């Protein structure tokens, strides 16, 4: 959980970044205290010299663990899973593990990059605001339909069984965004809707939500 002061773990995060949201959930689930370092993407703080020294690319999230700095949510999560094995997030079974990676990548390669700020701004400017909304909906719905198909025979209480796993870390922020930012009709996605309800009952997920972060506008 986020704390002030001198922690071994520091997370550079933006409250609304769904990639940062994934890592916040994992840190909470594993009971890892960390210092929250806000990076305001709208104010272009990711290009500041201090942040650039840490991550020359200027992406959030970045996890600093002592001498080690890791960027990219997927890389950070696999690093955490290996270094802090409490509350494991990946099943041992190879097929289930692959299922988790597939679901995670549907989100981070097939949905999120196509509805991030840069892409949506481009479509709004070059086509129209309506086209932007339509574009976001089309891609999120396509990805969500694929997730419903992929997980249908595996989901239990959570995405791939009765325990929270890697896939849930990616699904929760994406579904949250679908509800709060894109106004999707989620009734067509019964499994994902159910998962959304389940995530909202877990403190580790709730505490990681954008509105609960130190840099969220009050």
């Amino acid at each position, binding site marked *: 959980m986020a704390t002030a002061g001198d922690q071994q773990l520091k997370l550079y995060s933006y409250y609304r970044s769904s990639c940062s949201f994934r890592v916040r959930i994992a840190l909470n689930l594993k009971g890892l205290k960390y210092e929250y370092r806000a990076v305001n993407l709208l104010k272009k703080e990711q290009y500041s010299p201090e942040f650039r020294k840490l991550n*020359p690319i200027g992406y959030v999230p970045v996890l600093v663990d002592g001498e080690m700095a890791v960027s*990219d949510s997927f890389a950070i999560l696999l690093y955490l899973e290996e270094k802090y094995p409490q509350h494991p997030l990946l099943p041992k079974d190879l097929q289930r*593990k692959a299922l988790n990676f597939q679901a995670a990548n549907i989100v*981070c390669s097939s949905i999120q990059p*196509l509805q991030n700020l840069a892409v949506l701004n481009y479509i709004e400017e070059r086509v129209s605001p309506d086209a932007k909304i339509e574009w976001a909906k089309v891609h999120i719905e396509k990805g969500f339909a694929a997730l419903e198909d*992929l997980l249908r025979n595996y989901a239990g209480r959570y995405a791939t069984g009765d325990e929270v796993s890697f896939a849930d870390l990616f699904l929760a922020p994406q579904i949250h965004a679908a509800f709060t930012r894109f106004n999707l009709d989620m009734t067509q996605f019964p499994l994902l809707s159910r998962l959304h309800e389940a995530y909202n009952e877990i403190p580790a997920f709730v505490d990681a939500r954008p509105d609960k972060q130190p840099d969220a506008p009050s």
Partner: protein
Amino acid sequence: MYHCQIVNQFRNYSTLYKVRPKSTSLSGNRKKKKMKFYHNPSHLHSLVSSIIKSSKRTQLNNFTRCFTTRVGFESPRTSRPMENTEASYSSSSKLVLYSYWQSSCSWRVRFALNLKGLSYEYKPVNLAKGEQFNPDFERLNPLHYVPVLVDGDTVISDSYAIFLYLEEKYPQRPLLPADPRLKALNLQGASIISSSIQPLHMLSMLKYIEEKIGPEESLSWAQLHIEKGFCALEKLLKDFASRFATGNEVYMTDVFLAPQIAIATARFNINMSTFPSLSRVNESYKGLPEFQASSPERQPDAVHGQ
């Protein structure tokens, strides 16, 4: 040209035999390790058998894991790609890869399979003809993307997920370093390519832009995002790249980067001179037989002249 890679697991080396079709006569120099055969393609089967049979008994068992890299090859007399008729000598030939020759995501997996010496059955999915929407394929991947790997009862789509699965299930020739920092670096490099570059220049995206904005726009859009991603990679890898992206061995970032650079230059006219580290490692990729064998033109469904 096709490649026959015989993996001697006992001695932990593999020998890549370049096999060139020439005439109907069969001749060969049977010196160990450096054999070149000129043959009619239909003799390949008996040729490789004879290599195995002529080996000493103790080596014979090791040679039972002989992987024939299934690459696209042509009959010297026709321009149509031949059916891949050669038998696999692998003791485990249950890997099936659904792939499209021009798909960079499929290319990554072909490259990884070659590096690990894994033979597989190539099943083409013609994206240009919409075969990804066939009900049979849709059952395998409801997102209609290639690649899809089938390993016995296990079906996996998404190149990143397939890569991590292969890495764990077939640990020979590790493609992720043990060092945590380098491992994280490789995962990050591959992520930049699979999340921040490729999705933004995939065909459906470019078609949308052409239709809604204009035909000239799709190229500049693709170039913008490729260059942005390459800039990021150049910064990320600057202090680590040597012969390859993160050192002197081929790892995950290379598996993703090599096809990405090839496509960036061939299809989108990216000028690589602004990316010196990437340019340098690209020269190394060009010399790798495993990469060459995985290239689009070498695949059974390649259409030449495109």
